[in-house]
């Protein structure tokens, strides 16, 4: 079977700082990582391949430096890696991103076989939209399974699979046909440690690098900023609340005394909460 995993190289958001004067992101020196949610997708793909055979292709769209993330994916055991990079892709929103990725997947299919499954993470940690996966599914007419928490059954003969999907208020057990696009939930597996052999292979491996033409993208006007219906009008830092917190006196007081004072302050500000707590306690 052939599995394609779409990943994204993202800035490590834990280390992002906002410039205090200009209110812009200070990108310099911020390390990049593979979007953590995508690693869950990659691990799930590698497990399926190890069990059922076939190959895993990792695909990303990004600047030339995104090759680092692809090499990392190869060290985990992916079989091949494709980088889609072109200035035409700069400024893509979710619609333009899914357009470019969908065409790149078609090209991957031409080169290495039709994919049975396309995986993505549930969302990225920089954009957080969770919309590119569904966009790709729609464009390639793949059956869409989002927020998948377990792949219960995969039958390559009948080309059917059964998954558990996190839904509102419960779990849906869904059965559908290949090919599918799956976005996986976090925490369903733990990324393997790459083997020495995979690391050596990764060092030798060629990352396939495509520009828009190589990837066979027909309409450049549908890529990047030009192909994006949404436009960012304004970027700003959240405003500070003018009023600082009212501090409970703590100097020289015991935790019990501080707690009493804090409770009094809380209940004075929120009498409804006090009433609720007292009533709920009685009902038990």
């Amino acid at each position, binding site marked *: 079977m052939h599995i394609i995993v779409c990943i994204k190289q993202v800035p490590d958001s834990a280390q992002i700082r906002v410039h205090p004067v200009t209110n812009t992101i200070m990108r310099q020196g911020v390390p990049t990582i593979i979007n953590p949610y995508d690693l869950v997708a990659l691990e799930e793909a590698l497990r399926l391949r190890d069990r059922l055979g076939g190959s895993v292709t990792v695909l990303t769209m990004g600047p030339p430096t995104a090759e680092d993330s692809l090499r990392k994916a190869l060290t985990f055991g992916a079989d091949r890696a494709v980088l889609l990079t072109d200035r035409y892709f700069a400024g893509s929103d979710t619609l333009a991103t899914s357009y470019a990725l969908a065409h790149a997947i078609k090209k991957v299919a031409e080169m290495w076989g039709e994919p049975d499954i396309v995986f993505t993470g549930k969302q990225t940690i920089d954009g957080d939209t969770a919309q590119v996966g*569904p966009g790709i599914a729609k464009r390639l007419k793949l059956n869409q399974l989002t927020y998948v928490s377990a792949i219960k059954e995969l039958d390559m003969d009948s080309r059917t699979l059964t998954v558990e999907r996190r839904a509102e208020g419960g779990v*849906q057990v869904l059965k559908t046909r290949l090919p599918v696009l799956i976005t996986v939930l976090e925490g369903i597996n733990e990324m393997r440690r790459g083997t020495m052999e995979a690391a050596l292979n990764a060092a030798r491996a060629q990352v396939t690098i495509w520009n828009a033409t190589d990837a066979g993208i027909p309409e450049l006007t549908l890529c990047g900023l030009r192909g994006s219906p949404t436009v960012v009008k304004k970027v*700003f830092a959240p405003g500070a609340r003018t009023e600082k917190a*009212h501090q409970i006196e703590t100097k020289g007081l015991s935790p019990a005394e501080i707690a009493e004072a804090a*409770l009094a302050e809380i209940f004075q500000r929120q009498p409804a909460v006090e009433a609720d707590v007292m009533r*709920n306690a009685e009902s038990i």
Partner: protein
Amino acid sequence: MSQAPTQKAAGGSRAGMSKELPEHFKSYKHVWVFIEFEHGAVHPVSFELLGEGRKLADKLGVELAGVLMGAGADEIRDGIAECFEYGADVVYTVTDPILSHYRNEPYTKAMTDLVTTYQPEILLLGATTLGRDLAGSVATTLLTGLTADCTELAIDDERSLAATRPTFGGSLLCTIHTLNYRPQMATVRPRVMPMPERQPGRTGRVVAHPLGMVETDIVTKILQFVPDSESDKAQLAYADIVVAGGLGLKSAENFQLVKALAETLRGEYGGSRPLVQKGWITADRQIGQTGKTIRPKLYIAAGISGAIQHRVGVEGADLIVAINTDPNAPIFDFAHVGIVADALDILPALTDALAKRLYVNRLAG
């Protein structure tokens, strides 16, 4: 790439582009809210969106409509009435046994058919697992813009939707417009917008629309639905009282102190993102921009520094109480009540003090 703003996006070639809407989009009018209806009930986020949609519709001088899908007219009758009472002027309905539970294919078809037939200028959906699954498919089918997880919606002076959302994990906010395409789509997470007041007896128009699909058209089948047992799944988003811990608790064992206080308050407990990464709590208990947004009456944050990604998830709380040893922790910038002390001392003291009050109250009868 997604919607991460770039220098180019903010001031690049698109900024100078004509904002003239193509002729075929000029007839697009009115504000719509997708009403999430599952297991016999409307998801509260849909009412929150009706409240927000009402403001947008009034500003534009147009109607507010809800879109409600379900198995049959009887099943959704109460849901329709609720839509009117929470502010809708019109409710578009699509009913078919195929729609009794959410599936991407039929819901996408119903939604896109309605949009192309009745042509709304704005379409809002809840950023739930259902709403996010549906929104991406609908926007891609219609080839229009979609802004995910908005925290503020407004109409600008050119009558277009200005959708503000956090970006880079909440470090920054950006305002996004959809140029030259309709409808302008946005999703909003539960509890980000306040619940509007219900107006009993308020009513409106119902417009029924056919689905035009048969079950054999649909590849994906639902074999089973396993509801969350209420006991072990966090009901954080809609809890009135929430106690949460952060790295200041120093160990997974100490997190018990958070649970104990939450239990005494009959509230829910949660934690900041690093605790999920450390495995101290499960992901469904994460509070913040990438976890749950909460709007409780009382929020107690113990040993949480208050990074912006946490802040955007709790700002809607009526009362925020922060316990932190660092007097300069950013959490004191948005908490209402601060306690500069070690959470490991204060949490058990609060639990004891509260237990004492409850005991006295019970004696007093």
